[in-house]
């Protein structure tokens, strides 16, 4: 069965969708559709082919192993700055484990790398993720960024700020100027790579993936800026403020932060989060959560402090933990004055069945992988080890594991992660069903 739809609705004219059966004879149709849609959506030829290649690996994998003969919905979405391919499909319990990106890695036999469709696919695209949907359905999504010219080498003229300042949302030229000034400023290893591509940020703003605020003087000179986007469904990550007129640093930072809060205070956002460094003068308005380490390919290590600010009152909540971290969590909650009921979970011999699934959010450009548990299973320990091995083989330097403390079964992963060289980095309040406990893989102990 093949059914292809080009949606006519204006709200959906960024989506092409197709429904077909997971069988190998349909593979050319899927590849053709993805490559064609990617081209129409503005992806370059080379990027379109890579996206098609990744789709080929995944569709083949699913047709032969994951959900053979089942109905698959394939959606290609124009994200403006990227193209996304989503594959939605049902999965039977017997095949659950096959969806782990590291499923083909056998801890007992490292040479057994056959049928590693997901892993192969991850190499040709920018991001890969797995999302558990309702009714035992899975969404596997891959994204490929469009290619943009980097910031021009010619330095923009120094800023001369005069008179009264105003804060607001810049037009596309203002966004490009802001991004260019940031990129041409002092190097910052924590800065995301899109700050090298002004056009990409303009497209991200157009797509609603982020917002930019700038402070300008009466002549329109840009004195500073800030970029923010949703890190989690209710948590906004703030990048900046970036200040280009040091003499008025406090004033500019204050204006940008206040406007950012004004824009998020009555939204679905619960909190602001900063993971890329914050000026000392603003730190008193945030709460220090902890830090992660950023390992570069060249061997340098940079500590990344995490700052947080709740936008609402803390209504309190219940969280689950293994006893091994109960004292740590209690200390953290006392330090942050958060009202939490901490409930220990205990293994009391209950039956566990099936294979666990972890989703893997891979960002190769940043040598970063974030693991999230999707389903429990009997093989948690082996699955953690498989993922570590796989990610190390893939030369991923920064491996994180997010535990949602509001989901009881995830707490059973805590001692397993600690036994496998993961270390607690910080607790992000309300970043999951309850709080998110961020673990980072400690490379120094491996």
């Amino acid at each position, binding site marked *: 069965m093949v059914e292809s739809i080009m949606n006519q609705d204006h709200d959906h004219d960024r989506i092409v969708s197709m429904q077909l059966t997971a069988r190998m004879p349909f593979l050319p149709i899927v590849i053709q559709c993805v490559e064609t849609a990617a081209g129409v959506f503005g992806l370059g030829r080379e990027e379109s082919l890579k996206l098609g290649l990744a789709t080929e690996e995944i569709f083949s994998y699913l047709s032969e192993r994951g959900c053979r003969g089942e109905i698959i919905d394939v959606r290609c979405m124009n994200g403006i700055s990227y193209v996304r391919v989503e594959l939605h499909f049902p999965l039977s319990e017997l095949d659950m484990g096959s969806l782990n990106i590291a499923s083909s890695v056998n801890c007992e036999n490292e040479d057994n790398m056959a049928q590693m469709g997901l892993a192969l696919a991850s190499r040709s695209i920018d991001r890969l993720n797995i999302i558990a949907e309702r009714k035992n359905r899975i969404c596997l999504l891959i994204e490929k960024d469009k290619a943009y010219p980097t910031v021009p080498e010619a330095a923009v003229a120094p800023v001369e700020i005069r008179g009264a300042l105003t804060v607001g949302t810049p037009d596309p030229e203002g966004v490009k100027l802001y991004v260019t000034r940031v990129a041409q400023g002092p190097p910052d290893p924590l800065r995301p790579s899109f700050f090298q591509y002004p056009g990409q940020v303009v497209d991200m703003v157009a797509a609603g993936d982020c917002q930019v605020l700038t402070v300008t003087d009466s002549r329109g000179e840009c004195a500073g800026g800030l970029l923010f986007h949703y890190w989690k469904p209710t948590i906004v990550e703030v990048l900046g403020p970036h200040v280009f007129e040091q003499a008025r640093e406090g004033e500019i930072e204050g204006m940008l932060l206040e406007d950012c809060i004004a824009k998020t205070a009555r939204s679905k956002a619960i909190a602001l989060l900063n993971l890329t460094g914050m000026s000392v003068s603003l730190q008193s308005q945030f709460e220090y959560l902890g830090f992660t380490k950023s390992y570069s390919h060249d061997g340098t290590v940079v500590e990344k402090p995490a700052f947080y600010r709740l936008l609402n009152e*803390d209504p309190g909540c219940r969280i689950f933990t293994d006893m091994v971290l109960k004292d740590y969590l209690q200390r953290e909650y006392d330090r942050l004055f958060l009202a939490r009921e901490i409930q220990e979970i205990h293994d009391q011999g209950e039956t566990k069945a099936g294979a666990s699934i972890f989703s893997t959010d891979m960002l190769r450009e940043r040598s970063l992988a974030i693991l999230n548990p999707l389903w429990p299973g009997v093989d948690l320990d082996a699955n953690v080890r498989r993922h570590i091995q796989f990610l190390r083989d893939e030369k991923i330097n920064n491996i994180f594991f997010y535990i949602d403390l509001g989901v009881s079964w995830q707490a059973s992963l805590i001692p397993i992660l600690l036994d496998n060289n993961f270390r607690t980095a910080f607790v992000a309040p309300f970043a999951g069903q309850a709080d998110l406990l961020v673990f980072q893989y400690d490379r120094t102990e491996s």
Partner: protein
Amino acid sequence: MPARPICWCFNMIEPNLNLLVPAYVREFEPYIPSKPDSELQRIYRCERLYRLNNNENPLGPPAGAQEAIRRFLPIQGGLYPSGDSYYLRQEIASRHGIDPDQVLVGNGANEVITFVIKAFCEPGDNIITADKTFAVYEWVAVFSGIEARVIPLREERFDDLAMLKAIDEATKVIFLCNPNNPTGTYWSRDTLKKFLDAVGGRQIVVVDEAYCEFVEADDYPDGMSLLADYPNLVVFRTFSKMYGIAGLRIGYLAGDRSVVDMIRRTCVVYSVNAIAQEAALACLRDETGHIRRTRELVREGKEFLCTEMGVMGLPVNAGEGNYLIVKLPGSDTLAYRKLMHEGIMIRPMTGFRYPNHIRVTLAKMDAMEAFVAALKKILA
């Protein structure tokens, strides 16, 4: 734990909420009210809790209203209340010299806000209000698919010129909060009349007078007295603040008869319960000096807090109303949590777009002293 995959299918089909629910509802984040006091005391580990967050009247309702609540018989619970608050509308109308049909009673002022927006607005329209004011005007508009144009305050006041400038052909309602919650600033009678003249009847102008009974300034306008001159004016009043029956949920609006007749079409009758109607009636008939006593309490609390905050070097914005706002050196939401552990519940102002400010209800002196002591402790 998420459901495990199964190998057979249910016939039950789940609703496609992406198709069924309008985007403006899906995108709206519902307000999460505070947990009950006993729950808060348990999770914040405090033995007692001073409620200084909702601008409630610590004296409670006037004596007559208390008696009305007491004498309500359980058997009356089985009867529907007056569907349109008949006697209460009569009383309100007679006190303001208007027709009872010019009055519409709702389940708190929040409900009458909803009536007005439903009556006048459809997707594509907009309402105008301030950025730093009572949030419900904006919320109801947004989850109804109506654009909310929020105009920044100027010198902590509603900016009349900027609001007039923001009006366009799609503007249906302008919401003013007088005195404003949380700044306590107000428009004088002269400013309000000039604004209404400038609007010229092209839009509905709502003046929310939830805190009017606290205002003692001579030039503060009684919106009800302007109804005859401005048929596009709608005035909101509540029994939750000065009259101390917030728990019963009752408020009302008044306007020109033809305007109220339109608003009534969006009003669900029987939403106001019988005890609330009886108690509200008794509030209006109170002759025991409830308003005077409350004003004295507010005045005493305001003077005390202004002095103490001054000693602590914390800027205060103390206007009209039974509240004031204090600027803190750091995060207001962190201060909320620290104060909760000390048994003090205030309102952090980030949600009002006032980061690093808290709003404190002016209450009895034991609560005021406890607040000051706790604030000194957490800022030490």
